């Protein structure tokens, strides 16, 4: 694992302490089980090490069930990791006592996937956005808190009039803006966006992505941007981590990962992304993966991708490939043959 830290270092200059860094983060769920059952063990996230620099965006892609949400929830402090550490400004959050952790984690907020269900249907928009201030900026008067909420709402393009409405009276895109406003109303430095645009109408997606990018520029927050849509992640991210069945299989600068994918899974992913260009699409022969994603309760031994990989050999079933920079590749790849 030492090599992993090394490989990470190769992506960014060593000098500054990153805003967020994880090492070997693992989450295991016990599912089923009961008075008489032996519960099944499910490694939703397994040994993930990533880092996010101030003001930059880390994109995380992967197929459904590969552990993206679990990872984001751990980073947001919603789920305690089974093992591994999360360093915020170089300080390990996982070991901290509850109250202390809560204070430290204030800097981390989240934007959720479903615009509607992430807003309490019985609260008005202004109240929803004010709530984080109610929780930990009690020193401010209610009026001040209201003002701050309204000003951030204004920033995301929600008018004062709309702030008086209930969530169901807003469109999906507006609801998601409210969600973003709530995440940014208190002084945050890292926003974790778990599929913030997948539930939106295609024509509205771009608005929200643009809004996020614009806010990053003006507020200097860092994002962790999670999506299963490679194109969306590609658009917003500086760095990209590709996940497969709980593990990061490729990790590096966005352009490196996208333009010269080294891991066979990343290659397939890039290949299977359709480009709205009929001439190109009809002529190219994309690499189609065979088979389905294995059940996460009993992942394949060795390399988890080997069951669907066209390069797999006996070695892959035995040896877990480490996520390291190989040869002259600028990004880290977890494949024996990269």
């Amino acid at each position: 694992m030492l090599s992993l830290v090394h490989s990470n270092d190769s992506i960014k200059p060593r000098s500054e302490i990153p805003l967020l860094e994880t090492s070997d983060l693992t989450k295991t769920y016990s599912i089923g089980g009961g008075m008489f059952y032996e519960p099944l063990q499910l490694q939703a996230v397994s040994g993930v090490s990533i880092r996010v620099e101030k003001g930059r965006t880390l994109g995380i892609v992967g197929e459904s069930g590969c552990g993206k949400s679990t990872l984001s929830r751990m980073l947001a402090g919603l789920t305690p990791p089974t093992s591994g550490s999360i360093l915020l400004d170089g300080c390990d959050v996982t070991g901290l006592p509850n109250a202390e952790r809560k204070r430290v984690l204030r800097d981390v907020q989240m934007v959720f996937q479903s615009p509607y269900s992430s807003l309490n249907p019985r609260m008005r928009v202004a109240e929803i956005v004010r709530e984080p201030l109610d929780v930990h900026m009690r020193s401010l008067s209610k009026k001040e808190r209201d003002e701050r909420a309204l000003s951030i709402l204004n920033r995301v393009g929600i008018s004062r009039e709309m702030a008086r409405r209930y969530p169901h009276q807003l469109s999906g895109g507006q609801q998601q803006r409210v969600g973003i406003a709530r995440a940014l109303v208190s002084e945050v430095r890292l926003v974790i966006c778990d599929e913030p645009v997948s539930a939106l109408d295609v024509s509205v997606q771009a608005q929200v992505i643009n809004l996020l990018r614009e806010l990053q520029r003006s507020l200097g927050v860092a994002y962790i941007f999670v999506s299963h849509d490679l194109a969306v992640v590609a658009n917003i991210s500086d760095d990209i981590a590709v996940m497969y069945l709980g593990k990061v299989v490729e990790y590096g600068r966005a352009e490196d990962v996208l333009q010269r994918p080294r891991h066979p899974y990343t290659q397939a992913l890039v290949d299977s992304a359709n480009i709205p260009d009929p001439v190109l699409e009809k002529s190219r022969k994309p690499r189609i993966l065979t088979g389905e994603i294995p059940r996460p309760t009993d992942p394949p031994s060795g390399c988890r991708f080997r069951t669907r990989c066209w390069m797999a050999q006996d070695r892959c079933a035995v040896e877990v490939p480490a996520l390291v920079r190989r040869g002259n590749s600028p990004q880290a790849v977890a494949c024996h043959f990269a």
Partner: protein
Amino acid sequence: MGLQPKGATVRGQILLGKDDIQAMAPRARRRLNGQRVSLISQDALSALNPCTTVGYQIAEVLMVHRGVAKQEAMARAVELLSLTGIPAPSERVNHYPHQFSGGMRQRALIAIALALEPELLIADEPTTALDATIKAQILTLLASLRERFGMSILLITHDMGAVARLADRVLVMYAGQAMEVGDVASVFARPEHPYTRALLESMPRLDKHGALLEAIPGTPPSPSEVAHGCPFQPRCAFAGDICREQMPPAVERSNGGHVACHFALREMNYA
């Protein structure tokens, strides 16, 4: 397919080959379903009956429409499953839908749709619920089946990539109205309707990563608002006064097809 809920009024004409579907008797129309037209519905995850085996659901179609004996129908179900690329189909026929993964369910649905070798396969967003790699598999499968059975596919989707991949002709709809129709290559290369163009430009693309997106302002209209004029007008960058008052008529596109816009984007607008 004649499956509108009660209270819906349907106007216009649907012709299948030479037959007017609207004019058909309910019985005949039912016979039509599955035999000549098949549907793969939008959410694959719940379009299978959870209480019967997948195999039976395929066989059922043959039994009801063709009067095939159960044994034979089940054998055919195995064939169909293997045709759609499900491994170990002879075991899988006896499984229940919840034992299938999302991609496999979609394949099973396709198998049902193919059972009677229809002339037309209507695929309503066959890939939206699926993962990228699986989506690619299904699209490829559809393409190969189209060749094999020589059938037509009506693909309904919001995934422009999938359209580029599979379709020959494309119809772009907005708020229930046809905006533009034409062959895929020309519509994608030179969209003449502002909506088509905006849509194409607002999609994040792998090959243009990092570029700021051209977002379409505003929100899609709710269908209950009966608007005069062009439905896209409130969000359209090119809209003029006339767009508010009058629904534009469909006019011939320069490269074939039609477009419904007062200010259709001709060559000169692509300056």
